């Protein structure tokens, strides 16, 4: 049988041409800032409980009355161009900027802010923002649907919003700067078919373009933004679950920003990618939390202090975390009001630990029940969890590690009302919702907060008093003194084992200019300010 040579060549040429078709799509990506994410967000609705990755999209699609400054925790004007606070500290009067538009073209008016805050307090599904807004007058009753109105948020004219609180709440502006303050248009968010889940609309610097599930989310620049059009064409968030794959993508130019560095490669990266490797402080602390509903930790402060002296934090931060983090035996991280730069009360001292262990009634660990240590099965966390286990074993305290999938771990630390978390001690890497010491110490240690952050179930009236005082005090200098006192008290009562202040490192392409990372988290970076060079 004779084969037609010409036809074969044509067929081959056709096959090769079809392989080239995807190329133009990749070329267009170059004008977009490509950001690596590990997976799709659960939702793009700003009032659903946010995790750090969802926050990134929300901060770019939505604007609020105020926002965080580019590199820090200060509050600066956004949709509100100015505001005043009444002398008693409960009434905020915001004046809106003119000419702010939603992505669908309509101008933003005061009624939109009223709508948005109401929606945040009365969602159809669970809301993650109610705790951030519940200091607004009438918010509790409104959220429980006991009253139809929200008297604490009023729009006397289209350019003015007046928000009244039940009592002075120092971090309130920070709450408005978070996703809780996102401004949404009612015509989109009242849609009974919930089209806004697939196509969110806000007034932020980037508008929603496309969500290719499992592949990427694209946001294009919103040219009518009140700050002016962003300097880049848009943002492309690429979903790359495997850290090593993302690293390779970055090296070959497929990403401008990789938010996770593979374990064990930091030395190589510091040597070979020095210009691209960045380390940023985070307002976050990692510690080992205690379950205060279980013996033997419950009533035994000497035992808890012993554990604090047994752990070698410095080795964890310097060696296991490859020098990325800073060891500490304090709780409040730098950048936060109330942070104390002096060293904390605990250091690595196994002899002291053994002494306190004996004083606590368990000489050489004899008589101690097995202690279960709950952690997520994240490789990096398991790494230092084993070091903690080994340090405690060295003074005679046997610990069994229970590593769970992240979802199971979250359920485990929430545990039950009767016995608290599913373990005696558990790992906790805490990022506050608000960059405020209240979002740290009160959320973690106040006795009224068992369901929403105080998973330790720590309850001490003296601590409660100090934390309530700090929340109501508006003078920053007085607040700082109160929170330092509170932290010292919590540490002397050994309410937890602090390990290190969390830093995050990432790889940023040399093409990127104007990238200012915010210690609150990656999500608070002002991406509308960056420019892409050649």
């Amino acid at each position, binding site marked *: 049988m004779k084969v037609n040579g010409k036809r074969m060549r044509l067929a081959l040429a056709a096959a090769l041409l079809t392989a080239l078709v995807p190329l133009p799509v990749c070329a267009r990506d170059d004008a977009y800032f490509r950001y690596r994410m590990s997976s799709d967000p659960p939702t793009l609705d700003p009032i659903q409980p946010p995790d750090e990755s969802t926050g990134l999209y929300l901060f770019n699609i939505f604007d609020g009355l105020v926002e965080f400054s580019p590199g820090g925790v200060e509050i600066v004007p956004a949709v509100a161009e100015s505001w005043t606070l009444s002398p008693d500290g409960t009434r905020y009067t915001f004046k809106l900027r003119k000419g702010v538009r939603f992505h669908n073209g309509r101008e933003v008016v005061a009624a939109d802010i009223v709508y948005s805050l109401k929606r945040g307090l009365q969602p159809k599904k669970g809301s993650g923002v109610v705790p951030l807004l519940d200091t607004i007058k009438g918010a509790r009753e409104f959220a429980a649907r006991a009253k139809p109105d929200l008297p604490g948020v009023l729009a006397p004219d289209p350019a003015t919003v007046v928000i009244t609180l039940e009592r002075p709440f120092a971090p309130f502006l920070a709450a408005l700067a978070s996703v809780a303050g996102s401004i949404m248009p009612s015509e989109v968010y009242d849609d009974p078919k919930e089209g806004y889940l697939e196509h969110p609309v806000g007034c932020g610097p980037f508008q929603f373009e496309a969500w290719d599930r499992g592949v990427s989310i694209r946001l294009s620049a919103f040219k009518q933004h009140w700050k002016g059009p962003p300097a880049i064409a848009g943002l492309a968030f690429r979903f790359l679950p495997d850290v*090593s794959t993302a690293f390779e993508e970055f090296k070959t130019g497929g990403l401008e920003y990789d938010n996770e560095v*593979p*374990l*064990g*490669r930091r030395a*190589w990266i510091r040597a070979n990618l020095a210009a691209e490797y960045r380390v940023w402080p985070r307002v976050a602390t990692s510690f080992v939390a205690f379950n205060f509903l279980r013996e033997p930790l419950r009533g035994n402060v000497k035992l808890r202090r012993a554990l604090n002296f047994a752990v*070698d934090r410095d*080795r964890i931060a310097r*060696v*296991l975390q490859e020098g990325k983090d800073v060891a500490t035996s304090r709780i409040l991280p730098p950048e936060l009001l109330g942070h104390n730069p002096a060293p904390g009360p605990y250091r690595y001292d196994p002899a002291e630990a053994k002494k306190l262990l004996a004083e606590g009634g368990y000489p050489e660990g004899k008589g101690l029940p097995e202690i279960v240590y709950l952690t997520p*099965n994240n490789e990096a966390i*398991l*790494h230092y*969890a*084993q*070091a903690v*286990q*080994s340090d405690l*074993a060295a003074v005679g305290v046997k610990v*069994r*590690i*229970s*590593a769970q*999938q992240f979802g199971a771990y979250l359920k485990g630390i929430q545990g039950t009302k009767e016995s608290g978390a599913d373990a005696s001690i558990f790992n906790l890497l805490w990022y506050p919702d608000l960059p405020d010491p209240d979002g740290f110490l009160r959320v973690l240690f106040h006795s009224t907060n068992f369901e929403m952050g105080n998973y330790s179930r720590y309850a001490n009236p003296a601590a409660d008093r100090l934390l309530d005082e700090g929340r109501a005090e508006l003078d920053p200098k007085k607040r700082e003194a109160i929170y330092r006192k509170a932290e010292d008290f919590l540490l002397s009562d050994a309410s937890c084992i602090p390990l290190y202040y969390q830093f995050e490192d990432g790889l940023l392409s040399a093409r990127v200019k104007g990238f200012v990372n915010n210690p609150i988290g990656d999500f608070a970076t002002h991406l509308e300010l960056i420019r892409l060079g050649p």
Partner: protein
Amino acid sequence: MGWKPVRRSPATLAGALLVASALVVTLGAVEWGEKPGSLLTRLRVATDPTAIDRGVLPPSSPDARHLLGTDPLGRDFLSRLLHGARVSVVVGIVAEAIALLLGVTVGAIAGYAGGKLDALLMRATDILLAFPIPLIAMGAMAVLDSPSLVLVFVVLGLMGWGGIARLIRAEFLSLRERDFTEAARALGAGGGRVAFLHLLPNALAPALVAATVGVAGNILTEAWLSFLGLGAPPPTPSWGGMIFEGRVYLTTQPWLCLLPGLALAATVAGFLLLADGLRDLLDPRRRGQTWAI
């Protein structure tokens, strides 16, 4: 029988040596008696595999104190490599022992009784054989709250008896028609006595070969589970877990990943070669005579 079949096959000899080495290391790695620590640590051949050396920057290169260096956490690598045998080999053998017990029981009953009972039991076996053991094991370990080694034995044992049941049943089906069975029954032996005293010893041969292969399979499945973090809990060393920890260092300190892999491969190969040898050894056709009591 004699040594002739063994000497004629260097592969079997190699298999037997590998398995023997693995068993010796395992026996040394297991913790015996009242005193703490394994035989290996008590004899100073190795150190405590969970002890972290604070003086090194892990993972460190080989030196006088650590013959193979340290792992990423600072623990002696050679000790972990040796103690890792404990998890692999013990899981492999115990799980297979459970599977053997279950498989022999089901197969003997099915093969001897015949009829409806046989059909029922074999359908159950077919269903079991349809499930991929590693995936079921992964699912079970992921779902259960406190994963432990005992759970791994049980899961692998419960999933693995299907093949053995089939083999035993096949042997019983042929053996029960034989002369010596009829003879035993004629002398007044009851059903159970005939089955377990007369038929079973003759039927065991292929099952034992299959069981040896099963041990190899279990060792690999356990390594799979440990690699995914679903096997022995930390800080217990296991070869699968060590491969997982070492994979990031493949380009800088490759032995962290490759040596446990090699140990795993050698142990599995040992059992498979031994199984081959056993099959040749126990195959009655090679000696041209049948077994009889």
